[in-house]
């Protein structure tokens, strides 16, 4: 490395060293607490009678818990780089509605379950995975891992979750990839919108 280049990047390295805040023990505890509270609240919501009121409350939970824009981007995978701004805006909007409508119904199967936080682990500077076990009323246990990340303003946000090792974002990414290959991002957005309209009926 030439001396000139080092002189240029040295201030950035020093600044980064000051700004770099790894997930410490206190933050890990905070992250775990965030997941415990949010997951408990989610199970409470799923215990409510189905209908538009539960859906609205679930939408509020999503808004305060999930990094839905980041999730939408990751669900696009490699196609994120080729999406135009207009395509991305329309897709993100459709994705947001899709998550609310679809997952409000899918997660309703966990109505009446109880949750136990097992352990948590910092995966890197920003990501924490919290392992929980949720138990059905008849005692059947399901492992659910929540991946959360530091978000703007130092808040935690849910970026993915895995039920028995099945990641939500990976599942969506693999599902969307085939549709994009066939019909493009616009086609995917149209399909999501029509799916949301049908499901919301």
């Amino acid at each position, binding site marked *: 490395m030439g001396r000139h280049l080092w002189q240029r990047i040295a201030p950035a390295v020093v600044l980064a060293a000051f700004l770099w805040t790894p997930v410490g023990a206190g933050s890990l505890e905070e992250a775990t607490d965030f997941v415990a509270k949010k997951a408990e609240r989610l199970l409470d919501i799923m215990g409510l009678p189905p209908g538009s009121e539960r859906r609205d409350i679930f939408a509020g939970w999503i808004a305060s818990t999930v990094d839905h824009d980041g999730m939408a981007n990751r669900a696009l*995978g*490699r*196609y994120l*780089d*080729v999406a135009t701004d207009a395509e991305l805006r329309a897709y993100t909007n459709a994705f947001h509605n*899709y998550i609310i*409508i*679809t997952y409000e*119904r*899918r997660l309703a*199967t966990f109505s009446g379950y109880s949750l136990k936080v097992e*352990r948590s*682990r910092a*995966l*890197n500077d920003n*990501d924490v*995975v919290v*392992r929980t076990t949720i138990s059905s009323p008849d005692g059947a246990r399901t492992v659910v*891992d929540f*991946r959360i990340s530091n978000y703007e303003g130092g808040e935690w946000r849910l970026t*993915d979750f*895995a039920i*028995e*090792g*099945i*990641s939500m*974002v*990976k*599942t969506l990414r*693999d*599902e*969307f*990839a*085939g*549709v*994009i*290959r066939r019909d493009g991002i616009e086609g*995917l957005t149209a*399909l*999501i919108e029509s*799916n949301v309209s049908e*499901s919301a009926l």
Partner: protein
Amino acid sequence: MSMSHVMRVPAVVAIALLAVACVQIPDDPVEHEAFIETNDPLEPANRTVFDFNLAILDHALSPVALAYRDHVPGPLRDGVGNVLDNLQMPVTILNSGLQGDFDNMAEATASFFINSTAGIGGLFDIPANSGREPRREDFGQTLAVWGFKEGSYLVLPFAGPSTARDAVGLGVDTLTDPLTWLLTPAWSYMRTGADVIDSTARELHRIEEARLGAIDFYATTRTLYRQARARAIANGVADPFGLDEYFEE
């Protein structure tokens, strides 16, 4: 297996190879990478088989499985499920050994003998009740542990999602299962039928859950199958988030 069945295998392989040869690989770099990652060169044929399997599920299996679930008492269904699981245990014992996982092999062996005797032919799963249940292993998992790649995604008629590696594994499991050779054809069909109805009754709610709101249910099934298999191969410690580090059991 009759000679005529054996003779059909080269024909099926030839058709599959021809189908793979006819597949057009995209030139665009993004499309090319996506195509390689999906690893489903037989997708059009797979989709046809998938639709056929779904029709069988909707019109034949689901009604029978629902009737079984709604009219047979829970404890009896648990007993039937336990017997079927116990019958599969020799395959787990063999494959645990082939993978060098002697702890699971010992647990599976103990489980098989305890359940077959004290558990009245497997009706009661005694080790599971005390929290010591061996993991199920099969030859597809063994091939993965030995370093064989999964190969193309396949949808098998009636059997459902698979891969080239798992399809070979399924064949070897059938051949190495002692009951394949001990049961008469009639009992063998009854066991398969009971297994299909029992597993459909157990998993139907999961299938419906995945189907609910799916954008492309075929693609959903493909990724769910692959993720579940990756987890089974890694004995439950696969990292679902694509990160370098994860929990150790």
